[in-house]
């Protein structure tokens, strides 16, 4: 397999096509337009495939819903304000157990915000985001290669568990160029999901819906969804560790913040500080078990995110008082550099008398 130099947004597009994405519906918003444009160029001309620049992010997510109803692998992408618009559609997808892939290349918020990278949609992504009790799988890539790999995995997970999957990227990951290797070839014919609505030929007609005037029926739907979520948690939780073996302090960070943290940790290690990194790859389900396990021997944690403190709550829940927690956040689209983060970590390291 050859490596190509690609920006993250385009890598998502190429990976999606190779994963058998048949339909893409999108809308322009900075900083993810390269992805929409890539699909306009490369997906639209593929046989049996469809690209639509929808009239809004709301229309786009509802087109994804329709395409998924008909059995297609379908994707939409946007950035934070546009993802807010999609929440209704995502709730419907989750309720009706329809697979879909939703890419959020986050930018600073709230409101119209900024066009620079941030991580302030973590709560929105991992707590359901729309109305009702539901979850979506949330993946947190931290390199262009991982954007490609996780995009492909997203389609598989969506189909396997009949659930929307969110790829939580950000503006830096989307714009940066890195070498990437695509580990699959695009299928000649996009796959059609078994059991989709393709017309009641030779079988009774099928209905996709969740509205019911009977609360007990809806209650059972909720329990059924959460049984599936428990299974996903058991089977699909993923995280990565970096130099945690002898660490006295572990940084917990995801996405681009984890890249910055790695740089900080390399600096600190060269100065003799025993610092490691725990990087959740699935943000939902959150890797609380690995963190609990780690907290048996490592007691100092440092959560670094580009927001006002969102993932830190999941870390706190996972630690359940078994470790000390510090938080460092930069919101609004400000991108700190490794040396700034290293400074803050080392100050804490020495304050706590870690050796």
């Amino acid at each position: 397999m050859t490596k190509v130099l690609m920006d993250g947004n385009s890598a998502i597009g190429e990976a999606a096509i190779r994963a058998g994405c048949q339909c893409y519906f999108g809308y322009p918003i900075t900083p993810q337009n390269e992805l929409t444009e890539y699909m306009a160029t490369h997906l639209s001309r593929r046989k049996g495939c469809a690209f639509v620049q929808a009239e809004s992010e709301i229309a786009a997510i509802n087109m994804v819903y329709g395409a998924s109803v008909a059995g297609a692998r379908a994707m939409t992408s946007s950035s934070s304000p546009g993802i807010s618009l999609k929440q209704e559609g995502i709730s419907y997808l989750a309720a009706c157990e329809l697979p879909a892939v939703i890419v959020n290349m986050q930018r600073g918020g709230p409101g119209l915000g900024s066009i620079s990278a941030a991580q302030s949609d973590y709560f929105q992504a991992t707590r359901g985001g729309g109305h009702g009790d539901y979850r979506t799988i949330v993946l947190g890539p931290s390199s262009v290669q991982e954007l490609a790999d996780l995009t492909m995995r997203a389609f598989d997970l969506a189909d396997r568990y009949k659930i929307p999957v969110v790829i939580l990227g950000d503006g830096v990951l989307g714009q940066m160029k890195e070498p990437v290797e695509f580990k699959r070839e695009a299928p000649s014919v996009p796959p059609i999901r078994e059991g989709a609505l393709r017309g009641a030929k030779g079988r009774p007609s099928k209905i996709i819906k969740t509205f019911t005037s009977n609360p007990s029926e809806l209650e059972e739907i909720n329990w059924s969804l959460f049984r599936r979520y428990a299974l996903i948690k058991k089977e699909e939780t993923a995280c990565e560790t970096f130099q945690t073996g002898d660490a006295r302090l572990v940084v917990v960070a995801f996405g681009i913040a984890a890249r910055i943290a790695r740089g900080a940790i390399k600096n600190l290690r060269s100065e003799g500080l025993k610092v490691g990194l725990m990087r959740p790859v699935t943000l939902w389900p959150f890797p609380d078990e690995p963190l609990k396990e780690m907290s048996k021997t490592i007691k100092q944690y440092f959560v670094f995110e580009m927001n006002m403190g969102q993932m830190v709550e999941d870390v706190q829940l996972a630690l359940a008082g078994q470790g000390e927690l510090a938080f460092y956040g930069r919101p609004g689209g400000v991108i700190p550099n490794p040396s700034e983060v290293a400074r803050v970590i080392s100050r804490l390291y020495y304050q706590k008398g870690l050796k």
Partner: protein
Amino acid sequence: MKTIYMHPKSLKKTPFHYCPGCGHSVAHRLVCEVIDEMGLQERTIGIPPPGCSVFAYNYFDVDMAESAHGRGAAVATGIKRAYPASVVFTYQGDGDLAGIGTAETIHAANRGENVTTIFINNAVYGMTGGQMAPTTLRGMKTTTTPYGRDHILEGHPIRMSEILAMLDGVAYIERVAVNSPANIRKAKKAIAKAFQVQLDGRGFSMVEILSPCPTNWKMTPVKSWQWVDEEMTRVFPLGVYKDIAEKNGAD
């Protein structure tokens, strides 16, 4: 004696939950008759809206997928783009299509999506108890216009057939009513034509159906059917608003 009228095959035998005299019941039946006569049952995917007809899937014996309020045209776009061989129709009320779903409706029509929209216009929000709809008539009393719709405060009833007819992607639009035997016959012909437009791949087709709502208009069924002629057709004239087949007939 031979049977003159039979229950359509693609209409399930479930008794309708609609009110006595409701236009939905007639409209459902007509769409099913057309589906039967055109042999479309095995290819059709229908999209009902939130509203009184949210339970349309209990009546139409075709594949159906629920839609969020107003989003039917976008859902239809997704289905048709993913599976062009399907026959896709949305079934939408006036709030759904002309209020919350205006953008999705206009843009699906503008793109010329090969889908058919059955637009039920009863000038009121039925299921939620009779609030003002985008198509409520001036002076009409509803639960949110208790003093009568005042155009200065609440705007005018919106004419979607006329608006959509201006779009190049639209192939066929007709406004009909289901308030008399003659009108019901015409409505069925219009529905059949709309589905034929889809089968021919000519673009977006819509049939706007003026539909009585006795309960929320606070009238008897017979009076409500008369009211469609007396009042609604003055604001929403019946007729063909666009038909590219006619225009291109000379080609």
